[in-house]
């Protein structure tokens, strides 16, 4: 058990890794959400010409492992002369940015699928009412469809945030020193596999609980109308 002293000594490394993990996850989720909203609106369209492309994107990113996607960007981009000679290479030669791009593209697909489901569940009465009020398609989307879809998507999105946090260990695989990367370094320097990975696991567990708690608060706020009435 005194091996945990090694881990305590390396706590600053873990905290640096934790900070990188948080950066990657938060930025990926923000970027992913920005991509997901228009994609979900298009994918929910009844016109197969409009829905086709976003649906194919969603199918590809949900059907392949995040690890393969990250490798495709990190190791794969360099295969092309054109990429290596363009300004893109400044970004794509850094594992950090590759991880961020892979995570954002991946979570965008999952989030879009969640939102598409929520959009398609919009009650037709609400849409009829909006049409009767003379709202245009854009106004209807902004005022009626999206707010209620976001609300319905909240529990499933909470799971997606947790999956993104757990998926972010892939950054550690492609040489970024995130929380998992920090644990790998501590393990290879001192050969304490149990202690090094258990501490990382505890950090992830703590963050998972925090996310669960945050979404519970959010649901309390935005699902207030679904709460049983207080007597």
């Amino acid at each position, binding site marked *: 058990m005194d091996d945990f002293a090694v881990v305590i000594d390396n706590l600053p490394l873990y905290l640096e890794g934790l900070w990188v993990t948080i950066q990657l996850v938060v930025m990926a989720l923000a970027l992913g959400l920005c991509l997901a909203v228009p994609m979900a609106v298009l994918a929910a369209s009844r016109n197969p010409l409009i829905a086709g492309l976003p649906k194919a994107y969603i*199918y*590809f990113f949900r*059907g*392949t*492992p*995040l*690890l*393969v*996607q990250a*490798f*495709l960007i990190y*190791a*794969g*981009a*360099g*295969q*092309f002369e054109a990429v290596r000679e363009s300004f893109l290479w400044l970004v794509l030669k850094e594992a950090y940015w590759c991880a961020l791009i892979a995570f954002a593209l991946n979570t965008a697909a999952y989030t879009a699928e969640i939102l598409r489901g929520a959009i398609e569940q919009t009650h037709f009465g609400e849409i009829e009412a909006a049409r009767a009020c003379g709202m245009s398609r854009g106004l209807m989307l902004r005022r009626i469809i999206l707010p209620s879809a976001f609300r319905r998507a909240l529990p499933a999105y909470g799971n997606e945030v947790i999956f993104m*946090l*757990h*998926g*972010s*260990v*892939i950054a*550690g*695989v492609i040489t970024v020193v995130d929380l*998992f990367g920090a*644990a*790998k370094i501590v*393990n290879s320097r001192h050969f304490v*596999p*149990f202690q090094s*990975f*258990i501490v*990382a*696991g505890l950090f*992830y*567990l703590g963050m*998972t*609980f925090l996310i669960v708690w945050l979404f519970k608060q959010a649901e309390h706020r935005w699902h207030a109308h679904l709460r049983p009435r207080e007597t």
Partner: protein
Amino acid sequence: MFDLHGYFPLILDGMKLTVAVALLSLAIAMVLGMLGALAKLSKSKTARLVAGIYTTIIRGVPDLVLMTLIFFGGQMAVNNLGDTFGWDYIDVDPFTAGFLSIGFIFGAYMTETFRGAIMAVPRGEIEAGQAYGMTPVQCFLRITLPQMVRHALPGFGNNWLVLAKTTALVSVIGLHDMVYNAQLAGGSTRQPFTFLLVVAFLFLIITAVSDVVLRWANRRYSVGVRRA
């Protein structure tokens, strides 16, 4: 761009390994899931507590962290045991460690799926079974098990699809699955993108085939259900 320089058989070998790992993990996950679900629904407080800790921890920690923990840590634990009992050095092979840890992880997800499915079987039918004098085991095998399959299938299907993709992580602990082989081939031909894209499509094929099978199973087990 799609000149594979004769490396395609290597990738296919990797795919065989990926499928083998996935199926073995699935078998373990189903056994653990069933045990977990029964423990969560049992009258014993200890059993519920153990199952609760199992599902909470597994679902709260990333799979790769658990996998490396089991792989590296398991290796060390086995050797420590070996020192105590005077065995020779035992090498934990990554194949066993891989499917054991993936099975262990997805057992937690299966626990939740199976628990929900068992609860969906009407209580009255179990009581009827008891009234006929069936033992708890008979009740389970004759009434609960055949009916829970239908309720478990959607969640089971999701878990399987996630599991199949998770097997890509065994390449990180050095198993020669298709992701590992693609990196090998990509490295020596300087075409990593090509080979990884091939692997991505092979994963899509696994997903698509699973989809067909799951849909068939869903139809098969919903035969007795009337739909509007």
